[in-house]
């Protein structure tokens, strides 16, 4: 019940509470101050935050750099689209189909991928992603190929004449917020559990971890599947949000964006990737209006952050706020985790 005790909240926690209040008010405040478009952008941003969180679970906590998360993201999107278009499913069964399909792909790919580490692991994940990208592009009758598969989204809930639908942008916003919030909560619980500490132990030194009885292969596999679950959940949400599934979602550049968001925001922190995604997506929206080659600026920002703030923006924020229990003073997140006796997930 730490969050309810305001006296014990750190400066960083207070920023988090302020941000949560802002997110709750977005559909009512943002259209007045800006316009509806930004409500959608913030909703999209939450989805991408979840995707970046899936990359972070693997790299930031387990030490596995994946360039293949797009596969589970894309399969989640296709799962929900197939549910609506081919099986005529209602909302929730299709939702579950999407999450299950993406997670099953992760469970399959993980059997082979987690036998490897570092660059070998990165290569095998990108190869898996490319194989299914080309398959999806080539099977137009099923996937719509590169043209994609537009969908009609049925109501989320329906009681007689009353229905809740994603076509109501306010409801859509809160729907995404609740699902993403639950996913982050689930991730936090896992990271606080012995399993989460095992992820970090494997990341820090898998040989030492083995000596205390941890099975590195099994733990990496669990992290991989859990990360795939988060990626597929974000894919499902993105398909529902964009009303469309496409083979482009499976391409490695989508995975690459997740990696960049995570690094800029701060790997190994619960909300760092969300901060990175938020910053770069807002920059993208503003800069792309004025200069079509805005990615050059984004690239420079990434280089600057990686060079001068190796712990990402969250690391900088923690330093600036002087958070009493999370100040980054060590050379890596491992030191932080040791000090906290936890997983660095504030």
């Amino acid at each position, binding site marked *: 019940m730490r969050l309810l005790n305001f006296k014990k909240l750190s400066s960083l926690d207070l920023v988090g509470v302020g941000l949560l209040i802002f997110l709750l008010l977005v559909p009512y405040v943002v259209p007045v101050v800006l316009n509806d*478009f930004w409500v*959608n952008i913030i909703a999209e941003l939450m989805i991408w935050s979840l995707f970046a969180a899936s990359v972070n679970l693997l790299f930031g906590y387990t030490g596995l750099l994946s360039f293949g998360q797009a596969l589970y993201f894309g399969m989640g999107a296709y799962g929900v689209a197939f549910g609506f278009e081919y099986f005529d499913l209602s909302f929730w069964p299709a939702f579950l189909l999407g999450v299950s399909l993406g997670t099953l792909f992760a469970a399959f790919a993980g059997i082979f991928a987690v036998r490897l580490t570092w660059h070998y692991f990165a290569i095998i994940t990108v190869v898996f992603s490319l194989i299914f990208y080309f398959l999806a592009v080539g099977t*137009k009758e099923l996937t719509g190929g*590169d043209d994609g*598969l537009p969908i*009609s989204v049925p109501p989320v809930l329906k009681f007689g004449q009353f229905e809740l639908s994603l076509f109501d942008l306010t409801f859509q916003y809160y729907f995404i917020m609740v699902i993403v919030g639950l996913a982050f909560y689930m991730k936090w619980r896992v990271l606080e559990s012995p399993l989460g500490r095992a992820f970090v132990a494997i990341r820090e030194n898998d040989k030492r971890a083995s000596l205390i009885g941890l099975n590195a292969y099994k733990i990496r596999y669990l992290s991989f599947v859990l990360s795939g679950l988060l990626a597929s959940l974000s894919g499902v949400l993105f398909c529902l949000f964009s*009303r469309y599934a496409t083979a482009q979602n499976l391409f490695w550049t989508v995975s690459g964006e997740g990696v960049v968001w995570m690094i800029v925001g701060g790997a190994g922190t619960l909300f760092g990737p969300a901060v990175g995604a938020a910053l770069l997506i807002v920059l993208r929206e503003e800069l792309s209006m004025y200069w079509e*080659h805005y990615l050059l600026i984004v690239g420079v920002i990434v280089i600057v952050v990686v060079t001068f703030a190796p712990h990402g923006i969250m690391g900088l924020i923690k330093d600036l706020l002087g958070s009493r229990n999370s100040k980054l003073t060590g050379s890596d997140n491992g030191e932080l985790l040791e000090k906290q006796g936890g997983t660095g997930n504030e």
Partner: protein
Amino acid sequence: MASTRRSFLKSFLAGGVLGQTINLTFAKNLFAGTSGDPIIIGHQCELTGGISSWGYWLNKAAEEAVKHLNSNNGIAGRPVKLVTEDTETNPPTGARKFRALVQRHKADFVLGSVHSGVNLATVPIAKELKTIYIPNGMAAEMTGKKGNRYTFRVGSDTYSQAAAGAEWATKNLGNEWTFLFADYGWGWSHFNEHKPILEKIGAKVNPPIAVPLDAKDLLPYLAKIPKSTTQLYSIFFGSQSVALYTQSKSMGLDKDMARYSVLCTHEAISPKDIGGASDGVNLLEYHPRMLKYKDTPHNRKLRDLMGVDEADAREKGSKRILAGSHFWQVWESVFFIQKAVEKSGWKSKKDTPDFIQALEGMKVSESFEHPQGDKYIRAKDHKAVINFHMSKVENGEIHVKHQISAGRIEKFFPARYDFTKESF
């Protein structure tokens, strides 16, 4: 002359006043005869990415069309504002840019991308945001099984292209067809649209050969083409298109069979720039690249606005080749919007249902606003019925050999959907 702080400030202020005066005068002339709130036309365009060589021309055409409107009383006396957003040739980005155009820039109408994937990602959102969307991609689905009442087409699609070329090509190029294409939606769409028409007219269709997107060497796939083939229909883009022309010629296939494709595979590329590899290829054009085959005052004037030469349609002072079969779609879309607004009395987005009914079935005659030719937008499926041209690459130029009128196409091109029954 030495410059002091005082003289600098004087010059700065004088320059500012002069500049503002020029600016106001220019703006006044630019919107001559218009008043009231501007009508905002959004343009979802490929300014960067894989097909930005086309996007450049679509953007230029949209800008020139809006400039022309504003110096000629605008639309219904109101000025017109054009807002362009770059899709980066990426469907999710393109869909987001459509939302930005409508929700952020308050676009009343949106001219669509030339990328089918971007179009299909946008079509459901157009309906949701109740905004008119005029895409320029070639996939038949967006004014077909995935279409809706808010989406219109003013140019061709794979369905009308198959209807236009199949009969003439069978009679004149050969009746045994083999389809060779890059293994993605565009190629399959051409095969699937052609097959029923070809079977109806008694042509033989061999099994299709789909080439992986990353294949650099096409020889293994060219070797699979049955010897009895009299006509090779190919759909490739960019470097694969050049590889096909080069390698099929080096294998001598051009002597054994006719090679046929749509102009899209050669759009914004001059045959001269690929060393004559495509010489002898038949191409279905939607508007002739060479001015002499459509040398009307309207076309001449429009090409002057685009700044291109008469033969290769190459931009003066650059190496760009006009996307001649596509740029006119954006140009004409702007004037279709003008006509439908003025016909329906559209004032704001609440009048969009009236606008839709005005555009459904609208006929236009060849003019400066519609230089491609007479055409109409079929009410039921929102597809345009247009004229085509069968051309051939000869000595590095694309020469028209045969005109295919809109009337001849319709027998193979019936409406398969009826959006008029859909509520607003």
